[in-house]
């Protein structure tokens, strides 16, 4: 990069930022102000400044280069840490081997005197007696008092709720499974509610009611009827492999453009955005002005330009020479480019999106027009009215949509089989290691767990009680999530002091 060009860009970026800051100091309450044009210029300046700053940052002298000395230092540090970890691992492995050896020496033979049989190690090996390590609890059922029986019952429940599964899921608890289910539901709610509310706001408040919005509404309603396994396939193909692969490795070598061509693309994108917004502003009508073919033509041109701008932005992402993925060093092992919690919650968010959109739209439509008029009458802008009056008024309805989405999402199994649920996930998705919430990890899910226990288990006889218990638990978990959401809604309603909805 030419240093002179870089300095020119840096200086103009700084000047632009200064100009924006200086002109943004208010000129308020001094007569009737002129409108749109100044704001457009300001917005264009902000966009331009952002682009320049990005350029200056990416092309900064010496930026992003690594000196050999520093590299060697980092490698040495890593080697020390690795050797430490390896010695710790060897110690633990030796301990495990010792315990195994002891375990192999002793067998327990529990005879059934009537049938001359003994309890086997597992049903597929009827001639091998049990190992000592397989005994988890010793009690004499016939001598237990009622109190002790109840205590045992509670202890079994606690074990079921708090421990990891053992013996290929046929014994032990389901704690990671509950954990995964709850976390997945919370994540999908966090994603779907803002997305759905924004979509509903657009459809109800901003979009011109016409053919296009009708088509979008029909599409949303159809989305609610798509079989959930289809979402799973889409999630696997789009989220896991396409988006996840991009996050891991950036755009492939084949699609990357040379630096100069890419910046040309960026400039083209900026130009198209500016053109689209100018056409859009020109197509606005003054109050009292009739709609002419000129307005319609401008409106259509603006829409087409926005679509082109969207395409250009997508192209910028796909062809950028600057991005090589966040997890380049771990390749070829995928980090996000595989099934995982993030992609599962995004897939389920898509699945539950129609529910949220429809209920939010209805809630927004139910906000009394007199409240909007009151807000506009106070001199509020459209967004201020929406933010301060419409959305709070629609909040109980939005929360109803959220509850429905949670109920639907928490019980889905089919898409999860494809995008992330495993029969056995060794680690919880939340841990004390940074970044604490590991969205790339696989997880366990109650719905999938029930299927796995019932139909995929090596010992389905032994797993049968767990199927019933897990099913009850799934219903209980969904019930509790819904109760929590319903209580939240009741709180919001109380705070607003209104009983309708």
């Amino acid at each position, binding site marked *: 990069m030419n240093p002179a060009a870089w300095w020119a860009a840096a200086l103009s970026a700084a000047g632009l930022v200064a100009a924006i800051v200086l002109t943004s100091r208010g000129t308020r309450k001094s007569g009737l102000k002129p409108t749109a044009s100044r704001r457009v210029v300001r917005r264009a300046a902000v966009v331009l400044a952002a682009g320049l700053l990005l350029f200056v940052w990416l092309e900064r002298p010496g930026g992003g280069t690594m000196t050999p000395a520093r590299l060697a230092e980092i490698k040495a540090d890593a080697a020390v840490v690795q050797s430490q970890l390896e010695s710790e691992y060897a110690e633990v492995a030796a301990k495990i081997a010792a315990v195994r050896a002891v375990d192999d020496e002793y067998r327990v033979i529990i005879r059934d005197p009537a049938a001359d049989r003994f309890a086997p190690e597992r049903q597929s090996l009827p001639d091998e007696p049990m190992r000592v390590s397989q005994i988890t609890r010793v009690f004499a059922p016939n001598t237990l008092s009622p109190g002790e029986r109840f205590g045992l019952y509670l202890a079994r429940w606690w074990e079921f709720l708090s421990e990891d599964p053992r013996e290929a899921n046929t014994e032990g608890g389901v704690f990671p499974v509950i954990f995964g289910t709850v976390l997945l539901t919370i994540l999908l709610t966090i994603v779907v509610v803002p997305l759905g509310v924004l979509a509903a706001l657009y459809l109800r408040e901003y979009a011109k009611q016409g053919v296009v919005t009708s088509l979008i509404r029909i599409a949303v309603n159809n989305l609610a009827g798509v079989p959930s396994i289809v979402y799973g396939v889409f999630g696997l193909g789009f989220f896991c492999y396409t988006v996840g692969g991009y996050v891991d490795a950036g755009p492939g070598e084949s699609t990357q453009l040379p630096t100069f061509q890419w910046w040309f693309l960026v400039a083209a994108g900026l130009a198209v955005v500016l053109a689209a917004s100018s056409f859009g502003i020109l197509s606005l009508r003054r*109050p*009292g002005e009739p709609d002419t073919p000129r307005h319609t033509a401008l409106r259509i041109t603006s829409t087409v330009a926005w679509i082109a701008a969207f395409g250009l932005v997508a192209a910028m992402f796909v062809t950028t020479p600057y991005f090589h993925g966040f997890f380049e060093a771990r390749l070829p092992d995928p980090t996000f480019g595989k099934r995982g919690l993030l992609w599962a919650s995004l897939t389920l968010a898509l699945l539950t999106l129609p529910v949220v959109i429809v209920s939010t739209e209805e809630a927004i439509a139910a906000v009394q027009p007199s409240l909007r008029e*009151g807000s506009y*009458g106070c*001199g509020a802008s459209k967004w201020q009215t929406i933010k301060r*009056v419409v959305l709070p008024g629609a909040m109980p309805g939005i929360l109803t949509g959220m509850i429905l989405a949670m109920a639907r999402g928490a019980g889905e199994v089919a898409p999860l089989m494809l995008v992330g649920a495993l029969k056995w996930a060794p680690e919880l998705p939340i841990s004390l290691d940074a970044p604490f919430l590991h969205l790339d990890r696989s997880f366990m899910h109650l719905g999938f767990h029930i299927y796995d226990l019932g139909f995929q288990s090596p010992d389905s006889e032994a797993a049968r009680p767990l199927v019933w218990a897990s099913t009850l638990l799934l219903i209980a978990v969904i019930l509790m999530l819904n109760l929590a959401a319903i209580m939240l809604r009741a709180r919001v309603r109380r705070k*607003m002091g209104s009983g309708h909805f």
Partner: protein
Amino acid sequence: MMNSMTATPVTPEARAEQDSSIIQRIQQGLETTPEVHASLAGETPILEIEQFSLWYTKAQAIFDISMAVPRGKVTALIGPSGCGKSTLLRSVNRLNDLIDGVRIGGRMLLNGESIYDPSVDVIDLRKRMGMVFQRPNPFPMSIFENVVYPLRIDGESRRSVLAEACERALRGAAIWEEVKDRLSDSALGLSGGQQQRLCIARAIVAEPDVLLLDEPCSALDPIATLRIEELIHEISERYTVLIVTHNMQQASRVSDFTAFMYLGRLVEYGMTRDIFQTPRLQETEDYVTGRFG
């Protein structure tokens, strides 16, 4: 003032003949000349409406109205339902912009500046006018937040400024004593009359140039109505008030000037006393005495 007193007296027969022709002309959709009293000439106008017309898609709701609203006075718009008085009021702060398919002709001037000029920021315009609606419409938030809403959206966030403005507005709306201990409670828990006074407090908190009242008492009981009327009387000392009302007695009690509208046209406009006691047109007299409308 002088002119209205020296207006040539007309015989009842001549007046009846003239009036019936005016009402017939309006009903037939013909051009009419409104009877504007000369008493208005002595007032400084804050709002001038010049040959203003308004259409909802195809249907015309307001026909060529010209009138000047005097500064610092209470002006009432009266007329039978559907005569366009609310529409005219909502045109003043461009609330009709929100309705699809509304077209206008003519112009309105606030302090000599055109309201409908394309370069005017409608948001800023509305901030200079307070509006109170037929039904009390407090927002679903606390009493305090309701009152300071216009200041909040204007970017004011200093607690002390807001608290001071809130108290001033609530005192101005004669509701401070009733709500001062529960400012953080929801405004929806107030009674209808209190809610309407709260809305008046909200309308005056930003010190507007003009206060627009759209039948502010039509949803209230007689006692609450009385309180609001007293309040309008009080605040008229500081603000210009334009009030739409269905209630003749209310118009005669609270206003200094009265405009009588019929089917989207201005019929007679003058001092309230003159309109109610010595109207020039038989039509006006019939309406204010309840014989028609």
